[in-house]
Each structure stands twice: as structure tokens, then as C-alpha cells.
């Protein structure tokens, strides 16, 4: 694989320091998934950067300690399940011998979850089968696109959002898990954000809150778009009325 016409291995250093722009990052992560020696190298380089971090240590204000410990006491922890995490720390569970921390596998896991969710959703929606079929078709098209990339972000109020996107299909598949449950009258709304403006990309049905949400297909993707998530009145808003809880540059 070639990135910008050069040997991808040279990106290991930049990657270990998060110095790889978003677009190259996912491509390099796909390379990492196939390259054990590269993962090994990135791990070693990250240990070196941790030493670099040591020299900038400062004494944190005492109030920060109280705030953090207090907040932790009120924050639910993630269960030790498989979820998309940074490649170098993709989980290797002992219960699953033979598991290797590969993005490809993580992606496959997500796809399987999406497929299961799609199946369940389809099962419960006999009346809207055509619509569901169309949606499933779109989901499959995005997931199987040769340029499909995956990104996962924490939602600041809790939960994780995962996007698989394809510029070729001009579409993305959105899923989320463990989102904070909103009060009645409020819903999550998805947005496509570009320098040219912000377009609503769909309301997220409230039924699944706290569990897996999606897959939702968002089409009409353009170069330079970011996808964002906000809380809006359930009726939807023409433009965001609150700061994004999660933002992914596509």
C-alpha cells in the first residue's frame, strides 16, 4: 500500500505521535491491521513518547482531583467487550484465543453487529420491508465499498458513535451504542457539516437509547464534510441549536 506515493512504514513515527491527518490515519490503520511488525513498531514508539510526556508533568490543581474523582463516581464504566478502539490497543480478550488486534477484525465485528441490527430491524418492520431493503442495500453498499473507512468517537455525554463511510458511495452508515437517554421531547440529530453550511442528516429514533442504535444511512456526502451529533427538540431543527456532542471529520 502506498500513502502519498511513499512507503507507509515511514508513517509509524508520525502515527505514534498522532501527527497523521485524519484522512491518512484511517489508511495507515488499514495497513497496520495487516502488518504485525508495524504494530510492534508503533507500540515501541508509543512507549518512547510516554517518556516524552513525563518531562512536561506539572502539579495539577487540587480542585481538579475532587472534580475528576467525583465525576468518576457518577460515570458508568465500559464493559470489557469488543469495540473499536485505537489499533494499538484493540482489545485482545483471553476468552477468544486467536484474536489478533486488527482493524480488519474490529471492522468485521462492527459489520457483523450492523448486520445483526439490520436483521433485527428488518424483522420488526414487515410493513416497511421495501424501505428496509433499500436501506440494507445502502448499508451493504457502503460497508463493502473499496474505499470504506471506519471512525469511532466518544460522545461527550456518554456512549460511542461509529461511522463507516465511503466517498465513492457518497454515503455513510452511522451506529451508536450506550448513548445517554434523553428526556421526553429531546432527540439526537445527526448533521453533515461543511464550510459551505450544515445540513440535517436525520433524527435518531429514540427507541434504542442506551443500547445499540442504527444502522442509519446518510447519503449525499460531499468532500470535506464532517458528521456531528447534537441534541434537538424531537421535531428536529433546521440547524443545530447546541454544540456538537461528537464530531468526526470524514
Amino acid at each position, binding site marked *: 500500500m502506498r500513502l502519498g506515493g511513499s512507503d507507509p512504514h515511514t508513517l509509524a513515527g508520525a502515527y505514534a505521535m498522532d*501527527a497523521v491527518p485524519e484522512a491518512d490515519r484511517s489508511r495507515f490503520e488499514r495497513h497496520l491491521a495487516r502488518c504485525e511488525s508495524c504494530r510492534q513498531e508503533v507500540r*515501541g514508539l508509543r512507549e518512547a513518547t510516554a517518556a516524552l510526556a513525563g518531562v512536561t508533568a506539572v502539579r495539577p490543581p487540587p480542585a481538579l*482531583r475532587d472534580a475528576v474523582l467525583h465525576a468518576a463516581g457518577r460515570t458508568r464504566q*465500559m464493559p470489557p467487550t469488543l469495540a473499536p478502539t485505537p489499533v494499538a490497543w484493540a482489545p485482545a480478550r483471553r476468552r477468544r484465543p486467536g484474536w489478533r488486534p486488527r482493524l480488519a477484525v474490529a471492522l468485521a465485528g462492527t459489520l457483523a453487529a450492523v448486520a445483526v441490527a439490520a436483521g433485527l430491524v428488518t424483522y420488526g418492520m414487515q410493513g416497511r420491508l421495501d424501505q428496509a431493503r433499500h436501506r440494507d442495500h445502502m448499508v451493504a453498499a457502503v460497508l463493502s465499498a473499496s474505499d470504506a473507512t471506519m471512525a469511532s468517537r466518544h460522545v461527550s455525554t456518554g456512549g460511542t458513535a461509529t461511522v463507516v463511510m465511503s466517498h465513492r458511495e457518497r454515503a455513510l452508515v452511522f451506529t451508536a451504542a450506550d448513548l445517554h437517554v434523553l428526556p421526553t421531547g429531546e432527540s439526537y440529530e445527526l448533521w453533515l457539516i461543511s464550510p459551505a453550511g450544515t445540513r440535517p442528516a436525520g433524527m435518531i429514533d429514540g427507541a434504542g437509547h442506551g443500547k445499540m442504535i442504527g444502522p442509519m444511512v446518510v447519503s449525499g456526502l460531499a468532500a470535506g464534510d464532517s458528521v456531528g451529533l447534537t441534541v434537538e427538540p424531537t421535531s428536529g431543527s433546521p440547524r443545530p441549536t447546541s454544540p456538537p456532542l461528537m464530531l468526526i471529520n470524514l
Partner: protein
Amino acid sequence: MTEGQRRSPGGPSGRPGQPPAGAGRRHARSGPGPDQLGALLGRVARGDQDAYAAVYDRTAGQVLGLVRSIVRDPAQSEEVTQEVLLDVWRSASRFDAELGSAAAWVMTLAHRRAVDRVRSEQKAAERELRVASSAIAYDEVAEAVEARLDRERVRRCLGTLTELQRESVTLAYYGGYTYREVAGLLGVAIGTVKTRMRDGLIRLRDCLGVDL
């Protein structure tokens, strides 16, 4: 830069086995003994709040220091630090000792969060300006870092890097710049910067004797 004894902000100096809060991996070569921070994380994963307080005490100083070197704004830095440390609480179960040390795991979370903050949409335009006005940014970063490079071993190891390697690593890690931005700042080809970052980190890793 001051030579000699360093007044540690975090704790009593010279007491063996009691590194000051936020001390770096000064003894990366001290062997494959149990990673205490890793063991604490194991307890945190099971919801142990005392263990979490201990993790906080061992990492908060480093996290805040690193975040501040990238984000700069003190209020935002504390905010990001809080997010990072809450991430540690929430995702402790995802830490896997086979994939690296606990310290590296925490600092990777911190660096990523800090970088995400400065690269977010709102900051993009402003950063482009900063990159365009090149030299100043490097001096700022370098100065801030130099002033704090009083950890002998890391400083010595950084000293073994070529100037271009050191500048590339410093700007990327402490400045939070992408390799493209670093290339712009240094007026060097992108390919050269990528290579220097990797070679520089490899040299640093070998000099620090990171075991992996």
C-alpha cells in the same frame, strides 16, 4: 535550564521507590517487573474507586502537563485533562498489558484527546494562520519544552537526535502538529519530515531502553 537537583513538585525527593507524582518512565530499563499502574487499572476496571484515586495521583500531573503543552489555554487544558482521566475510568477494561505499558496507554489517550481538541473545526482556520506564520510557533514550542526538559535521561536522549529529528518530534508531540504542518513550519519536504519523525522516535526509543 537548571542543572542539578530538581525540585519535584509532586513529592519528597530522594525517597527510593516513591517517584513524585507525574514522574516519567525514568526507569524504563528497571526490568519486566509488575507494572503497578497496570495492576491498578485492573482494579479500576472492576469499579475500585480507591485504585482510581491512586491512578489519578500517578498520572494527572503528566496528563495535564502534556495537554497544556498542546492546548495552551489553561481552562481548556483542565477540561481536556478531566475528559482524559474520565476516559481512563470508563475504559480501564479496554487496557491490555500485552499491547503496551499502562503509562503509554494513558498518555496515548491524553495526547489523542489534546490533539483532537486543537484540530477541531473551530480551531482549524486559526491554526492555519499560525502555521503560515511559521518560525514563531516553533520557538514558542521549543522554549516551553526546553524550560521543562530537566529530566536528565529524556533530555540526554533527545540530545542524541539530529536537529531536524528533534525539531520534528518536538513539534509533533509537544506541539500537536501534523507532519504536514511540521513540514510547513520547518520548510522541509513532507517525506523528509515523516522519515525524521520515525528515525527520531526509534533513536529515542533505543536510547531510553524501552523494553518491548
